[in-house]
Structure formats: structure tokens, C-alpha cells
């Protein structure tokens, strides 16, 4: 059963890897063709030296991802803390709004956000792109962090206050260090979202050298719908997946526990 599950999950990915590493003849015929070799790194050379080169998209995505993660945590931590300490109807109302926005499909926002970007001159700006991304990540981030705040011993902050610590110091020196694992898993999930987001990047960014990875890949796909340079496609998809692959494999425990803990408490 487990073998079957792994086959189902990994076979399509493995096929991409294989496609990226063989010559076109080998791909079509399954045997060594006239070029005399089966395996090749030519596809990677091609996308690495393309104009704009693939590393440019990776870099753009990393910049947006880092900015989004930093901004989301900066806004989500105080919000989650305030929400957890707040009682009554306001807390119920905000939680409901967060849940509704958390399940909301992003694509329905593209039209108005596009107009906003044009009106405020935010198009073709990677850092500006992290503003809507932050908003889209906030609901999940606040819900996860609120659950983490709820987990801390209730007397802890009281004791710190009696020692004369004010709110910023209590947060920074007492509460946040204990929250480090939750902050890490929230950060990873936010980065994942930002790396993968498509409709808003597609409409906000039009200059080729500023594209993030998802629209860049889609553009490569669209430019040659009927030809078969699949080796180069595959090389691009492998390189685009690699950073996330490493992230998921290194932080798998934190991702799984982050999402499951948040879901249990939230």
C-alpha cells in the first residue's frame, strides 16, 4: 500500500526528472539515437542560458517569498496575540472573518487588485507584489499563531508583567522565543504559498525579467503550444521545484505538525 502511495505521488515527478536528463531522440525512441548519447545536461544549459535565464525567475520568486514572509509574520504576530487575549464578540467576529478569507479562492480578486496596481503604480514591482500576498497569507498565519499563543501557559505572561515588563518586552523576551517552532512552520507555509501563487503574479507583472516562477513557466508553456521542446520544459520545472523540494524534505516535521496542530487548536 505504501509503495503504491509513493508511486502515485512520485512517478509524475520522477518522469519530469527523467525527461530533463535525456536527449530528445532518447526521449522519443527510448534508445540512443544519432547523437550517440542517452543522458544529457543540455536541457539545463539551455534554460540556464536562456533570456531571461531561469535563475532570474528563481531569484524573483525568492525575493517576493522573503518579503512576503517577513511582512506576514510582522503583521500576524500582533494580530494573533491581540485576538487570543481579546474576549467576547469581537474575537468571534474576527475569527469568523479569518476563516472566511482563508478559504476564499484568490483568483476572484485579480480584477480589482489589477486596477489597484495600475492606479497606485504598483505593477511590475516585486516588493509591491508582496503586499497582496501578505494579505492572502494573513488569515492562515493568524489562525496558526493564535493556536500557538493559546498553547502557552497562561500564568507566564502575568508573571512577566508583575516583574514590570511592558507589552513589547513581554512579547519579545518571553512569548516569542517559546513560539519559535510555530513561527518557523508558519513562515514555511507562507513562503510556499508565495512561491506558488499564479493569478496575481500573472496580472501584476508583465516585464519578462521581473516574472516570478509560476507565470514564467506558464509563459514558456504558452509560447510553444504545438512544438515539443519538452526536455527544456522539464529542466525548468525541475529547477523551479528544487528549492521547494528541499524545503519540504528538510522541514517536513515542522510543516506537518504546523498544519495539523493549527487545525486541531484552531
Amino acid at each position: 500500500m505504501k509503495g503504491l502511495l509513493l508511486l502515485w505521488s512520485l512517478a509524475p515527478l520522477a518522469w519530469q526528472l527523467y525527461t530533463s536528463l535525456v536527449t530528445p531522440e532518447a526521449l522519443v525512441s527510448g534508445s540512443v539515437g544519432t547523437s550517440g548519447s542517452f543522458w544529457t545536461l543540455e536541457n539545463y544549459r539551455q534554460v540556464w542560458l536562456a533570456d531571461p535565464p531561469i535563475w532570474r525567475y528563481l531569484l524573483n520568486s525568492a525575493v517576493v517569498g522573503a518579503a512576503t514572509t517577513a511582512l506576514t509574520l510582522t503583521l500576524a504576530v500582533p494580530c494573533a496575540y491581540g485576538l487570543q487575549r481579546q474576549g467576547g464578540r469581537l474575537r468571534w467576529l474576527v475569527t469568523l472573518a479569518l476563516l472566511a478569507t482563508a478559504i476564499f479562492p484568490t483568483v476572484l480578486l485579480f480584477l480589482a487588485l489589477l486596477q489597484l496596481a495600475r492606479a497606485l503604480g504598483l505593477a511590475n514591482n516585486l516588493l509591491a507584489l508582496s503586499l497582496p500576498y501578505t494579505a492572502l497569507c494573513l488569515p492562515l498565519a493568524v489562525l496558526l499563531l493564535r493556536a500557538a499563543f493559546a498553547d502557552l501557559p497562561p500564568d507566564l505572561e502575568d508573571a512577566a508583567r508583575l516583574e514590570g515588563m511592558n507589552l513589547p518586552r513581554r512579547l519579545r523576551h518571553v512569548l516569542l522565543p517559546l513560539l519559535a517552532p510555530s513561527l518557523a512552520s508558519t513562515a514555511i507555509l507562507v513562503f510556499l504559498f508565495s512561491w506558488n501563487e499564479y493569478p496575481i503574479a500573472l496580472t501584476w507583472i508583465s516585464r519578462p525579467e521581473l516574472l516570478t516562477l509560476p507565470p514564467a513557466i506558464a509563459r514558456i508553456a504558452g509560447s510553444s503550444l504545438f512544438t515539443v521542446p519538452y526536455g527544456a520544459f522539464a529542466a525548468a520545472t525541475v529547477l523551479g521545484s528544487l528549492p521547494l523540494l528541499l524545503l519540504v524534505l528538510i522541514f517536513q516535521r515542522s510543516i506537518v505538525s504546523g498544519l495539523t496542530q493549527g487545525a486541531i487548536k484552531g
Partner: protein
Amino acid sequence: MKEQRLNSSWVNSLLMLPALVLLAIVFAWPLLDSAWLSTQASSVLTGLTPLANGGANWQRLLGDARFWQDAAVTLRFAGVSVALELVLGLAMALLLHQPSRGRGWLRALTLLPWALPTTVLALGWRWIYNDPYGPLNAILRACGAAPFGFLTTPASTWLFTVLADVWKTTPFVALLLLAGLQSIPAELEESLVLEGASPGQILRRLTLPLLKPWISLALLFRLAQALGVFDLVQVLTRGGPAGSTESLALYAYLNAMRFLDFGYSATLVIATFLLLVLLTALGWLLLRRRALEPSR
């Protein structure tokens, strides 16, 4: 409560304010703006300047066969793919919950399809379905069968688009349900085992009833996301052939970015939003009613 005396309600609200303002700008304002724009003519014909045209966009929507076809495609897509994802996701979650060596790795590898960008994976699937060079056709050839155009006819394109979506999003459902499984105390299952209950009976009498809140959450989340499906169809099929995989979101996108008709695009956005609210509210009511009934 001792906690609430720590800060005044004022301070708490102030701490929440920045995040809530950003949320209002990015979620509430676009919906209001699109609702307003849906009552305006705003296209190349008006030089993209909004001009009030009453209910003309909405009248056009009601008589637009393409809208109705896309609505049917979207609903069918959401219904079938979410149902499949829940069943497969439950099986996957049960498998991932079993204690075994390397369970962490198994979980991480199973999660990969969910964690990677949809556009990247959609491009991958286009190659896997390729006729005649893709791996699926290579397998068919090896079995002596004729090559099959997976993305050629409307029916099979729709089916294989659903399959790609199920492959991509089932891990997320599994992860949520895994959270539910972890919250069920092991003693409960042990006591049922001692009573001599079979695995099937345990699943029916203990696991499924206790998993209900998580199944509801996964259902609501996936339903809302599936009704807004865009990335996958835009890259995998471009909505074709013959509009058989064109979702409402894709049609709204095409109206804005290709036909430059912002007023009608906004109308489609709001129509999709209303459909979403209607269906999630309906789903929520049904689930809540079900939850209020005594289980068995």
C-alpha cells in the same frame, strides 16, 4: 479570566488593526469594487472608462450560453474532484497515520504534489498526457494498444484534468484528516479492539464520526478552491477543447485580459462569488444539520 486583564480591549484591538486593514483592502474592497463595476460598461468601446449601464451586464450574463456552459463545467469539476479527493484523502490519511519506520519521510514525499507550483505541475501533466510521445502513451504502446489523445476530445480532457487536480490536492485533504486522526485518543480504538471490533467497524463507529469536523473543514475549503479553479486549466488545457474545461474564473480572466471587457469580467467574478457563497452556505447548513443529529 486572568488573561483578559493583561491588556485593555483597546490595546488588543490596536494590535489587530494593521492586519485587519490590509485584509479589508485586499478582500473586501475588491468585492465591492467588482460589484460596482458589474453595473458599468467598461471595455475598449468606452476607452476603459466606466459608464453606468444599469443591469446590461447581468442581462447579458443570463443569456450568455458560454457562461452557463462554464458554470456547468465548474460545478461538475468541483463536485467530482472534491468527492474523489475526500475519499482518496481519507485512505491516504489512514495510511500516513499508521506507525511505521520512516513515517516522516513518507508524509513529506506524499505532500510534494501539494507543495509544488500548480503551473509547473500542469506543464508536467501536459507532457505526461502527450500524444504520441508521453509516458502514458509509451505504456499503451508497450501493451500493444493504439496511442490515445488524452487531451483531444472534450470528455477525456475533462476527465484527465480532474485526475491532475485530484493528484495535486489530495495530499492537502489527507493532511487535514491526519490532524483529525491524531486528535482521536488511541485508548478509544484499543478498547474497541478489545471488544473484538473489526477494522471496518472501528472506522464506521469511531473514526468517521469523530473525524466529521475535519471532513467538513476539508470539504468547505476544497469546494471553495475548486469553484475558483484557474491555474490548472489555464496551463494544462487553456479551457479547451471546445470550452470543455473552461472554468468561470478562466472566462472572467479572458474577458479582462484578452477581450478587455472589464465590466463583464467583473460581472463574472461576482456571479462566481455568489455561486461560491450559495454552495458553501448550503454545504455548511447540511453539515451542521447532520452534526446535530445523534450519530447512529
